[in-house]
């Protein structure tokens, strides 16, 4: 695929499968984690505004990692991710506000509940392929949101307020502390995702994605693994939804619209399908552009053309999203992660970069 860092010789197969190979890589990783830990306290991002942004990016990363396993690795398109986030969010909101469950119980429960719901909707979904699948997951979205808005115990159209998360006696009240919590969960979920895709289950997923007919003939049960992929993806969505609802401290059906599901798919494409890094790059890149467009450029543009203010800013975000994702689909379908790998490869081969 791509070259390994020079001077790395693997003495065992376990080492050959390792993600982090050299001392430099360990060093860089530790520095990265260090930066993530320090960011909310020092430097240009140490403000509520940026912390809020980073929290949201991190939550997006979790959700996209799940979608990545389903769509990027297993090749099953899903427009239902936002609805599964809603399931996680509402599980958390109900358990936390009505039953008083603590964070550490709510979070996994949200994931499991979303998994269960995801599993139910996966049963029709694994039987169909391609466009039929896309619409089936769309149906899942509509049915789930319909149920949330129509049922009484979900707070229906009114919504549910919840308290800040707490573990034992620690209440994650400040943006900084909640950021730490979210980043922690994000790192764990990302490591899990990476491990899942580099072990047996992950290979089976890729086999189904790349060639489902051959996979079937070569001993991979497509139904089981598609169900599994849907469940894992829903689990990730559930966790992301749970964190999001803790972040917002409020659950409302309008927070989990179809647009969210589309955004998640768009992020996946921009980041690069079937790449754990891609989910992270895509989340950061797309959210950043979205943020800049919506919060900074679009009101300014609106003020510049007062008679068209509303139209301008309403249209801008939509057009920018269209342009970004459209350009990536046409010119770099493998997304940012592919660019990143090219960059890495040319660094490793320097000064013979033309080898790639």
């Amino acid at each position: 695929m791509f070259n390994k860092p020079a001077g790395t010789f693997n003495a065992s197969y376990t080492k050959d499968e390792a993600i982090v190979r050299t001392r430099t890589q360990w060093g860089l990783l530790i520095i990265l984690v260090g930066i993530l830990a320090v960011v909310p306290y020092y430097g240009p991002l140490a403000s509520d505004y940026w912390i809020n942004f980073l929290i949201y990016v991190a939550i997006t990363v979790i959700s996209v990692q799940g979608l990545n396993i389903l769509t990027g690795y297993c090749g099953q398109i899903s427009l239902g991710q936002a609805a599964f986030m809603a399931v996680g969010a509402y599980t958390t909101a109900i358990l936390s506000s009505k039953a008083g469950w603590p964070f550490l119980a709510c979070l996994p429960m949200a994931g499991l509940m979303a998994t269960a719901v995801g599993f139910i909707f996966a049963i029709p979904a694994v039987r169909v392929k391609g466009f039929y699948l896309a619409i089936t997951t769309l149906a899942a979205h509509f049915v789930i949101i319909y149920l949330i808005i129509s049922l009484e115990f979900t707070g229906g159209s009114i919504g549910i307020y919840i308290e800040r998360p707490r573990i034992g006696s620690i209440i994650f009240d400040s943006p900084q502390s909640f950021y730490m919590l979210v980043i922690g969960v994000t790192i764990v979920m990302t490591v899990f995702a990476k491990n899942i895709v580099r072990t047996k289950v992950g290979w089976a997923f890729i086999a189904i994605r790349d060639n489902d007919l051959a996979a079937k003939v070569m001993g991979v049960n497509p139904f089981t693994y598609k169900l599994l992929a849907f469940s894992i993806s829903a689990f990730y969505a559930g966790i992301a939804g749970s964190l999001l609802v803790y972040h917002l401290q409020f659950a409302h059906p309008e927070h989990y619209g179809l647009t969210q599901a589309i955004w998640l798919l768009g992020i996946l494409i921009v980041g690069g399908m079937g790449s754990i890094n891609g989910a992270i790059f895509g989340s950061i890149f797309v959210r950043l552009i979205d943020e800049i467009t919506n919060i900074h450029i679009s009101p300014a543009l609106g003020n510049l053309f007062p008679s068209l203010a509303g139209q301008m800013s309403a249209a801008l975000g939509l057009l920018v999203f269209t342009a970004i994702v459209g350009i990536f689909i046409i010119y770099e379908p493998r997304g940012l992660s592919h660019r990143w790998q090219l960059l890495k490869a040319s660094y490793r081969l320097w000064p013979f970069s033309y080898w790639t």
Partner: protein
Amino acid sequence: MDMFIQLLISGVLVGTVYGLIALGFVLVYKSSGILNLAQGELVMLGAYICYTGINVLHLNIALAFLFTFAVSGVMGIVISRVAIRPLVGQPLLSVIMMTIVLSIGLRGIAILAWGAETEGLSIFGHSYYHIAGAVVSEQSIWAFALSVLAVVAFALYFQKTKGGRAMRAVAEDQQAAQSVGIKIINVFDHSWLIAAVVGALGGILLASGSGVSIELSHLGLKVLPVVLIGGLDSIQGAIIGGVIVGIAENMAVGYLDPVVSDWGLVGGGLRNVFPYILALFILVVRPHGLFGQKRIERI
């Protein structure tokens, strides 16, 4: 009983328009293998263009229709050339996402050009007729008649003309069609043109009842269960699926809403969800819809 007949007839009338819009999906799918999730936006834009023709350019109704078809048709071709051509050979997700972002972009364009205002669109008269124990409005009769006319016209076009035959050939086998000298790319343009025109007609017919707004694009989502039920590649499936969904919606409101309301689902409100649930059940039994072609997998 009275209610049943009324619901049935209203369902058939509106279902035909759904069928017409679904025809747009099917045509594009058959000729290019792409499910156009931006069909709803083509519907919405059609309604807006017609609104512009009537209320801004002050055209008479016939001219406004022609104007709408012309502009929509050009738009269809532009979309086909700019967004769809580069997708040949791309993975399925790219194709799906492309039509989704296209839908978002088209919505953006509509907002830029017309703002977010909701406008009335008055084309047909407002009288009412009693037919077979049901009351129907002039608008829905027109909608029904024009939809049937359009469907028949396109079916004939598909069967009889050179362009239609080329489209059928491409639908059967792209490579074989190419080898006998059919330019696939032109067929793409062709099918997108027709899809845009069909969508625009559907948009005008529906907007003459509920007014023109950006939200009209949600009709695209409403019509998706139609193609799911009918099968993505079947023209008669689109029409029958449309009628099924039209009737199912009305029956859900009439007879199922009170039931689920008793179960604790506030007010029922199954109209939008029920066709999807129906489609899910049909898919479990028939993964290619009621009339869709099952392709033999080769390895």
